């Protein structure tokens, strides 16, 4: 139990400040215990070796790769924007023509007939199903 606590204290001493009491306890134990000193040296050795693995670098063209990826994304985005703009422009034309035709149809229906319902205005009057299969009634429904 005491050894475990000391070991944790030993690790803690490398990465954080110890309290006065902790530092004193560790100092005394290090002086008296050969095993603890050996552990201390091994931890130092490992830490030094791990730190030494740091000197690594990327591919020599690392920066150029990033810049070309960014430029490619930007030109792709530009292309998508041009496409979206042309789509909006052509649809605007279609929408204008369609609304003009709709107004013309409504005006024609208003002038030519006296049916002021939505179906009448749009020229989409529905024939009920029972009239559709009866030729006499269908004539009546059509107003002939």
């Amino acid at each position: 139990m005491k050894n475990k606590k000391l070991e944790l204290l030993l690790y803690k001493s490398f990465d954080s400040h110890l309290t006065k009491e902790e530092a004193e306890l560790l100092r005394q134990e290090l002086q008296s215990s050969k095993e603890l000193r050996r552990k201390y040296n091994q931890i130092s050795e490992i830490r030094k070796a791990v730190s030494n693995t740091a000197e690594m670098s990327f591919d020599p063209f690392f920066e150029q790769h990033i810049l070309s990826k960014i430029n490619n994304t930007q030109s792709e985005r530009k292309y998508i924007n041009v496409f979206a703009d042309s789509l909006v422009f052509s649809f605007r034309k279609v929408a204008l023509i369609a609304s003009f035709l709709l107004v013309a149809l409504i005006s024609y229906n208003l002038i030519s007939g006296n049916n002021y319902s939505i179906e009448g205005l749009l020229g989409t009057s529905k024939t009920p199903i029972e009239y559709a299969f009866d030729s006499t009634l269908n004539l009546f429904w059509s107003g002939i």
Partner: protein
Amino acid sequence: MYLARDYRINHLDESELIERCRNGEQQAFSEIIRRYKGKIASTIFGMLGRCDEADDIGQEVFIRFYKSVNNFRGESALGTYLTRIAINLSLNEIKRRKLRSFLSFEKLIEEGKDIMDIDAKSSLDENKEIIQKAIQKLSSKYRSVLVLRLIDDYSTEETAKILNLPVGTVLSRLARAQIKLREYLKPYLSEI
């Protein structure tokens, strides 16, 4: 003329570089890459070891920064911010690897390779490969604290901030990581 401009960019401070980057000045962005690529490389190589994906992940770190530069509020240092992105992308890669090895025989092959196979006679100072293999054997939660603290040389407080963990957790994970490393590297440690 070009050299003079280059010289000026080299001497700009971090906030000025970020501001210029926000305005779309590519030279400022290149300078940021030059300044931080070493640190990001050590983080990614520390987390993943030498591998083909490391360069792509490194590039992705800077591309993500470039895309989100307008959202960067400067609450942490740029190096810390980039390191956080690097750690997150590396952790994603580790997850992907786990999934890949689960779905293939890769795991069996990897398990067959042992640290001991490398060169049992070389000391730690002589062979970085041994250390890297041992770091790769740690689980990602231990690996990330070890890389940030010992390889990137961040303080325990900075490490805690980057990983969004309490300092106490960082300290205990560090201790645990070193205990495990000591176990893995026992044959190479000197008996002083």
